[in-house]
């Protein structure tokens, strides 16, 4: 009895099953435009070559409330970096009001509002410190993705899509708009279209999440010759500020002494 051919059955089954599939339209194209990766590399190389700089970042974290409403959280940060081993990041905003100090010997996280700080011995380079902060202390340092000397390799790892979207103007500067994709993450980088290819904006989107939520960082006020006083990277606790500890990722809980 050849009432329905296998082909017809499979079509019907496919139809039936597809009803339950969430419709996420993500083209499976594997295009990597060398012009996009090249512009990204110019930016990361240029940033890596800078001995010192300061920059202002405006970060927007997209989130969804428990009732399904979209809510955005904003954090403003000013960052000073002096290679190879000094970093200062002051963050102010809704989820966090915090200053991060690194002077080549120790790192300190300071919450002025709570009057507490924690200091830990740290590796002697910015890159080593960033790895240590992330892996052992679960700390996120602003704009860390772009600070690494091998930022390019880290960014383009596993990318299966890269294009130049076009050019636009951000904070009065013409910037080239690049889009990259790799499994689970899309990221967009806007690179200043002049002799100093600095990043203008950076958007990371979690594509593993149906809401496609992003973290957006807009950079402004680049200063490649900031006035730097070395001791500003070392934390001096104001009166009444109390030392606390980090919960390390490599131990369970805190041991009391």
């Amino acid at each position, binding site marked *: 009895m050849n009432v329905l051919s296998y082909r017809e059955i499979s079509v019907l089954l496919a139809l039936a099953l597809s009803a*339950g599939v969430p419709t996420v339209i993500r083209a499976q194209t594997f295009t990597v435009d060398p012009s996009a990766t090249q512009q990204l590399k110019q930016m990361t190389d240029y940033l890596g070559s800078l001995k010192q700089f300061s920059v202002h970042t405006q970060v927007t974290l997209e989130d969804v409330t428990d009732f399904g409403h979209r809510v955005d959280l904003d954090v403003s940060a000013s960052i000073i970096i002096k290679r190879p081993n000094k970093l200062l990041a002051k963050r102010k905003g809704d989820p966090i009001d915090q200053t991060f100090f690194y002077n080549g010997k120790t790192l300190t996280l300071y919450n002025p509002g709570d009057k507490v700080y924690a200091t830990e011995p740290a590796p002697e380079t910015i890159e080593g410190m960033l790895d240590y902060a992330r892996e052992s202390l679960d700390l996120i340092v602003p704009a860390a993705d772009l600070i690494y000397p091998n930022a390019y390799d880290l960014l383009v790892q596993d990318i299966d899509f890269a294009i130049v979207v076009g050019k636009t103007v951000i904070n009065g500067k013409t910037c080239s708009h690049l889009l990259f994709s790799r499994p689970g993450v899309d990221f967009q980088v806007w690179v200043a279209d002049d002799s100093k290819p600095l990043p203008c904006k950076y958007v990371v989107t979690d594509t593993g999440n149906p809401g496609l939520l992003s973290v957006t960082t807009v950079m402004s006020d680049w200063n490649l010759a900031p006035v730097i006083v070395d001791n500003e990277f070392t934390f001096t606790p104001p009166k009444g500020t109390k030392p606390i500890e980090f919960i390390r990722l490599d131990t369970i809980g805190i041991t009391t002494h």
Partner: protein
Amino acid sequence: MKYIIKIAVFIPLAALMFIADITPNLAPPYLQLFPEAVAWTDQGAFLVSRRRMRRRGVIVGASVEKRRDAQASSQQQQQESTIAQEQTATAKQQAATAQQQAATAKQQAATAEAILLPEGTVVTTLPPTCTPMQVSGVEYQHCGVNYYRTAFQGNNLVYVTTHPE
């Protein structure tokens, strides 16, 4: 005849499509031939909650979490139904939500104060009635039966239960 059988096959399939689409929970088990779809949704939800937990630093010891969940769930349902009813009265709704959240928080706090938590339990907010105290130069918060130390968990400020010596 062939035509009738085709229809006979197609209509139930179409009905299944409908069921699967509209009421995923009521869909018969054999329709859950879609591990990807299920995994995808779960993964999504997981990422959202994990991300949110990280951001707000809401990482609570498993034992506390369960207890709180049980208590909060009835409250939560009430909250949700209240909100569904009062969608037009935004101000009212917000007030109700805030009140209920406060009530939930209070309830949770009361639980946290009365029950001795395992050492190393991490909470993001202290119970409402705590007394700061120093033991061998280290500051603790004494709240009900528990002692907490302040700590950074990543970038978040948290409180960890401990037994001062």
